[in-house]
């Protein structure tokens, strides 16, 4: 994030529109803004945090009054007034503008009380124009996380608190955010919940039922097989009886008295076989007819209803519709009506034509209507056809059954004739044949019984198989839930390990950078430390022995600034690592990162002269861009000597007050500027004036 411009409109004591352009190059990376105490330096610091996050620092008085008081006083009853801050900056090769507006309607003489504000974020496109981005607050938080901002936008007089032991939480949170540790902390917290969900699924799906169903299926299958064996045996017996009968039939055929009757029997039996086959075929044909077309019988008057609805639609002119939607859509797309009238969205003509979209027909629906109507006309005929076909089939079946009965009777008559012939041999043969027939019928009946039992078993087998499939699926589900729970737990362990490693390494790394920064600011034989508990400590080192150093406010400030510097340099390297675009493992190591400026109010307020010089030397080097807000008194000769070679832009807040005798000037680079002006205005006000640099 490189700050470009800050524009204030009617914000606090800055009336009208006032703009600051920030220095951002090397080595001129410092913008200094001079202002007397209480004239607007803290307001400028707060204008950054307000624009970005809608928040003010805790010490900011009357945060409910962001709108310039003179503007507020001058507004009439019921009039809406507003204040606005725009901050333009560069980030990741993009040029952004964040704009926040506070609005309030004045009611009588009620004092100003603004609740809330609206923020928008814009990014320049290829043509250089700003385009608004959705989700401004989230997007800003991704550019500079809110939890980090207090390390980069701060009041110098209060930054020393980072060196107090109570600050460890703030320091730890910032470090974690910056290095992406928070992501892992959250993952470690969330993954056990995910694993628990899968374990809960596991309990729901049992596995013992699977074994029970499998055992039952085994029993059913072996019973089925046993029946199959019995049927095979029955068929063999029947075949053996048939052969015996063929032998007897042959002998009867050889006997002159029996021959004619036996030949009749041969013929009738052949005919009976054929008739029975035709009966079976005919039954199957009737079943097929009922299953294919039986529904016609149940349709009732549906066909008539369809035809009458179609007729009504047609007589009302709704079918086919005079205009098609596709035609209307084409007109709208073309932007011109058939009469030549231009169709512009939002205009009356466009609206009128668009109305036809509702009324226009859809070609496909109309086609289906026509098709349905013609099918409805056929319905009655189809039903009649079905009736005719069924009557014929049933008639034929009855004929065949009669034929069967007739043949049975003829065969019985032949048997009885043969049994009553005078020849004993024939009578014996026929008697034996009768017994064979009885046995054969018995076996046929038994086989029929076996077949029925087999059918019943088969449907039980099918049901058990389906049950087993389900149980197996449930058991697979259970196994899957178990594996998923295990993988979630494993990932949690991996995160925990990485988190521990990174936390340790990162703290060590940051500790090293704090030490380096501290050494560049202070030459005293002291050593700062960011310890395992994320506390900032300062040690006296003598002959290699460390003792806790007594810290002045100045030293605490330097220690805190060393931390800010260390954090900024780590953030910068994080950003570099991300730019390198390393995937895989690198993704684990990439935190937020970024290049951040330092905006520091009252930079030298609490400091002794020695430290002021040190801090002034260090500030331009802590971050790629520094904005320093100072009073004339704080900007002593030593401070300016250190800062001067780095100042790229300078401004003075000229403060006007109705009080007399307050006039004061400030000199900068050989020029004189008004610092305080007396008696020139009715109310106090602040104006920004750019000073000449170099």
């Amino acid at each position, binding site marked *: 994030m490189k700050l470009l411009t800050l524009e204030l409109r009617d914000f606090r004591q800055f009336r009208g529109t006032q703009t600051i352009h920030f220095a951002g190059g090397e080595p001129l990376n410092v913008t200094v803004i001079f202002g007397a105490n209480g004239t607007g330096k803290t307001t400028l610091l707060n204008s950054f945090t307000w624009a970005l996050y809608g928040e003010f620092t805790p010490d900011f008085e009357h945060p409910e009054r962001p709108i310039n008081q003179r503007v507020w006083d001058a507004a009439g009853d019921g009039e809406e007034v507003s204040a606005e801050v725009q901050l333009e900056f560069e980030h990741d090769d993009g040029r952004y503008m964040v704009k926040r507006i506070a609005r309030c309607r004045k009611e009588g003489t009620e004092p100003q009380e603004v609740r809330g504000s609206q923020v928008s974020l814009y990014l320049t496109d290829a043509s250089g124009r700003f385009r608004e981005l959705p989700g401004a607050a989230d997007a800003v938080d991704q550019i500079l996380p809110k939890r980090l901002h207090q390390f980069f936008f701060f009041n110098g007089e209060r930054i020393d608190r980072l060196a107090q032991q109570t600050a460890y939480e703030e320091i730890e949170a910032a470090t974690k955010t910056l290095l992406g540790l928070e992501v892992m902390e959250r993952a470690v917290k969330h993954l056990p919940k*995910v694993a628990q969900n899968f374990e809960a699924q596991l309990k729901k799906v049992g596995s013992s039922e699977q074994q029970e169903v499998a055992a039952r299926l085994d029993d059913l299958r072996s019973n089925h097989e046993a029946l199959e064996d019995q049927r095979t045996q029955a068929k063999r017996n029947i075949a053996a009886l048939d052969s015996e009968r063929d032998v007897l039939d042959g002998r009867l055929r050889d006997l002159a008295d029996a021959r004619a009757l036996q030949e009749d029997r041969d013929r009738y039996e052949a005919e009976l076989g054929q008739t029975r086959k035709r009966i079976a075929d005919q039954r199957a044909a009737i079943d097929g007819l009922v299953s294919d077309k039986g529904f016609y019988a149940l349709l009732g008057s549906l066909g008539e209803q369809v035809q009458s609805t179609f007729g009504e639609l047609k007589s009302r002119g709704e079918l086919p519709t005079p205009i098609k939607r596709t035609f209307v859509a084409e007109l709208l797309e073309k932007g011109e009506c058939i009469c030549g009238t231009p169709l512009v969205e939002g205009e009356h003509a466009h609206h009128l034509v668009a109305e036809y979209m509702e009324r226009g027909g859809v070609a496909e629906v109309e086609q289906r209507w026509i098709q349905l109507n013609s099918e409805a006309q056929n319905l009655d005929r189809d039903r009649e056809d079905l009736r005719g076909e069924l009557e014929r089939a049933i008639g034929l079946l009855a004929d065949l059954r009669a034929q069967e009965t007739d043949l049975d009777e003829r065969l019985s008559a032949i048997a009885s004739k043969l049994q009553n012939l005078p020849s004993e041999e024939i009578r014996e043969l026929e008697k034996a044949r009768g017994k064979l027939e009885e046995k054969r019928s018995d076996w046929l009946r038994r086989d029929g019984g076996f077949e029925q039992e087999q059918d019943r078993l088969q449907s039980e087998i099918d049901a058990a198989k389906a049950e087993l499939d389900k149980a197996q699926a449930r058991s697979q589900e259970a196994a899957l839930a178990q594996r998923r729970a295990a*993988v979630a737990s494993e990932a949690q362990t991996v995160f925990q390990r990485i988190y521990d490693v990174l936390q340790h390494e990162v703290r060590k790394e940051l500790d090293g950078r704090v030490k*380096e920064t501290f050494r560049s600011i202070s030459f005293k034989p002291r050593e700062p430390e960011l310890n395992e508990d994320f506390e900032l400590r300062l040690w006296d080192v003598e002959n290699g022995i460390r003792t806790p150093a007594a810290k002045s406010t100045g030293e605490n400030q330097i220690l805190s600034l060393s931390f800010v510097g260390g954090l900024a340099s780590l953030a910068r390297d994080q950003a570099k690592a991300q730019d390198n675009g390393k995937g895989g493992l690198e993704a*684990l190591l990439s935190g937020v990162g970024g290049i951040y400026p330092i905006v520091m109010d009252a930079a030298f307020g609490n400091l002794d002269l020695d430290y002021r010089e040190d801090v002034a030397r260090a500030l331009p080097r802590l971050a790629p861009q520094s904005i320093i807000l100072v009073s004339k008194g704080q900007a002593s000769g030593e401070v300016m000597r250190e800062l001067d070679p780095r100042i790229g832009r300078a401004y003075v807040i000229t403060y006007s007050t109705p009080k007399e005798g307050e006039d004061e000037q400030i000199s900068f680079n050989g020029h004189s500027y008004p610092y305080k002006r007396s008696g020139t205005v009715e109310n106090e006000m602040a104006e920004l004036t750019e000073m000449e640099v170099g």
Partner: protein
Amino acid sequence: MGVAAKEFDRSNAEEEIRAAMTAASPEARELVKSVLSIERDKLHMKLPRHVIEEITEAVEDIVQ
């Protein structure tokens, strides 16, 4: 920049992280990557919404 201009020395951390990742099953490795991306997308929310559901879906996608 005179201050802390050296590169972040990650070699030690990298080595340990690589070891942790190599020891994990391929499915856990894939899940670690998915969870990182889910959590990172929701980092700006104090109370991330639907995070458990999204991680659950990621696990279901990875372990089939």
